[in-house]
């Protein structure tokens, strides 16, 4: 079976001194199974062709044979570092299409879980960025913080990574009594540890020298290539789905959208670190305002959605995750299209990778943070 992209190799017309090299699916610095065919001139990259599809599981075809309720665990496995956000995105898409209103307490619990997962995803991003450049310590610190957050999740829903916690109409289990005190202890600890991570990486002269000016993405390029999330905000476009196309109860909280102008890898890192601070702000406000009440609306066990179609989107840690659902009046969707943020973000990499050293290319891939299960679905 030809996995070697024979057409690209034939068309490549290597000049003297150039050669083709494979940054293969099994590599310590690609984040998972992601492959790049590089045309190199010595140590400099002349052109890069990404090859995806190594984790294509056919989730959209699976969706056509499952109930709306049965599809929820599959959304966990789309972007495995932010399962709660994926669950939330899918639940909001179906609730908007079916016209279901959910109780207040469920809304607040959803926001708390989504922001906690955003913090864990961002701090792990800093860890992976560190190890791709050769620093071991940020990775272990990132996993230590993630374990603290997972303890909170395990207390509530029992799982460590793929939670399947939210339901269409609310959430599945109520918060236990010890959750809010544990969260109150966790917030000052997280503030301290974010500063520590920033001292390790963001203020480190080696890190700044290796990421400043690498892979500059201009504003027009980011918009034309459909980028979203931190890739778009680092190029100067102030857009966040939580503020500009608001969903759930995010309009009740005060928080800011960090934006920078340059568009290089250092700016992308900077935005993620600032967003941790903003998520902590949202958590503090949500903890004060959370009311008592039901956690689940009155939704029939076998939910049928009236005929219609709609696209609805939310802000994931990596960008804009959207679900376009076409319903034919039964209890299974006719077509479900998942708009994954990494699919559009990774398309930008060949454009900005020209002329970089191969070590800089690794830093660029780490900054873009494209996860293969999301790219391939």
């Amino acid at each position: 079976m030809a996995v070697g992209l024979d057409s690209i190799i034939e068309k490549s017309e290597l000049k003297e001194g150039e050669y083709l090299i494979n940054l293969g699916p099994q590599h310590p610095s690609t984040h998972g199974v992601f492959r790049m065919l590089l045309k190199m001139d010595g140590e400099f990259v002349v052109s890069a062709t990404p090859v995806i599809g190594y984790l294509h599981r056919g989730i959209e075809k699976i969706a056509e044979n499952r109930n709306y309720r049965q599809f929820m665990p599959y959304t966990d496995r789309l972007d495995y570092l932010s399962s709660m956000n994926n669950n939330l995105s899918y639940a909001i898409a179906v609730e908007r299409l079916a016209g279901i209103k959910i109780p207040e307490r469920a809304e607040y619990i959803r926001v708390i879980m989504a922001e906690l997962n955003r913090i864990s995803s961002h701090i792990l991003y800093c860890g992976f960025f560190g190890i791709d450049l050769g620093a071991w310590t940020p990775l272990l610190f990132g996993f230590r913080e993630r374990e603290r957050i997972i303890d909170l999740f395990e207390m509530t829903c029992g799982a460590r990574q793929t939670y399947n916690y939210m339901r269409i109409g609310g959430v599945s289990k109520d918060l236990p009594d010890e959750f809010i005190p544990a969260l109150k202890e966790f917030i000052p600890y997280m503030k301290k540890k974010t500063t520590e991570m920033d001292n390790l990486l963001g203020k480190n002269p080696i890190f700044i020298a290796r990421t400043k000016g690498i892979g500059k993405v201009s504003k027009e390029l980011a918009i034309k290539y459909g980028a979203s999330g931190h890739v778009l905000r680092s190029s100067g476009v102030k857009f966040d789905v939580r503020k500009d196309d608001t969903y759930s109860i995010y309009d009740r909280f005060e928080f800011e959208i960090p934006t920078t102008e340059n568009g290089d890898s250092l700016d992308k890192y900077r935005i993620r670190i600032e967003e941790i601070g903003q998520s902590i702000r949202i958590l503090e406000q949500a903890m004060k305002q959370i009311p008592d009440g039901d956690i689940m609306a009155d939704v029939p066990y076998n939910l049928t959605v009236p005929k219609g179609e709609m696209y609805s989107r939310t802000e994931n840690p990596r960008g804009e995750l959207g679900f376009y659902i076409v319903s034919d009046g039964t209890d299974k969707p006719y077509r479900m299209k998942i708009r994954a943020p990494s699919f559009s973000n990774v398309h930008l990499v060949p454009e900005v990778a020209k002329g970089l050293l191969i070590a800089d290319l690794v830093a660029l891939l780490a900054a873009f943070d494209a996860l293969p299960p999301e790219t391939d679905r």
Partner: protein
Amino acid sequence: MEERNFKMALLERVPAILEKVPCGKPIDDMVNMVYNWGRRNSVWPLLCGFACCAIEMMSACASRFDIARFGSEAFRASPRQADLIIVSGTVNFKIGECLKRLYAQMAEPKYVIAMGSCAVSGGPFYYDSYSVVKGVDKIIPVDVYLAGCPPRPDALLHALMTLQKKIDKERIGKNRWNKRYE
């Protein structure tokens, strides 16, 4: 080829000869014990994580569930230097080709742990998926199966301990990589 067959034949005949010599069996046991003790306490996995289970594998290497105390501290990036592949994640036809190649490039003795439901049997993607291979043992031979979606890091450590018990029972000259192909 002739020389290799001669050396193999010698290795396979030594345990049979030692049995007949007085106190030969304890010597054979002792040699096997020392040989296996060295190998089971330094199983070095390959750095390859495919999907969600890879994060639990990385958590097993981090500080809370330290895998270094079992000797597997060094995760090698090159298959030529690794002893163990932990297949962590869904395998489809495209990556299955690469997995076959990786397994063939590893030097013997080599082991495989199938981690997570997707590697054991296809997992939640068994039904209605056109591209998922239903179990990685359709491509490469597996030594230890570990269930879970994803399994906890403690479960991965338990699988590693099961593999170590399997290594303890091996005997020189009678392993599957000493088979003569005729």
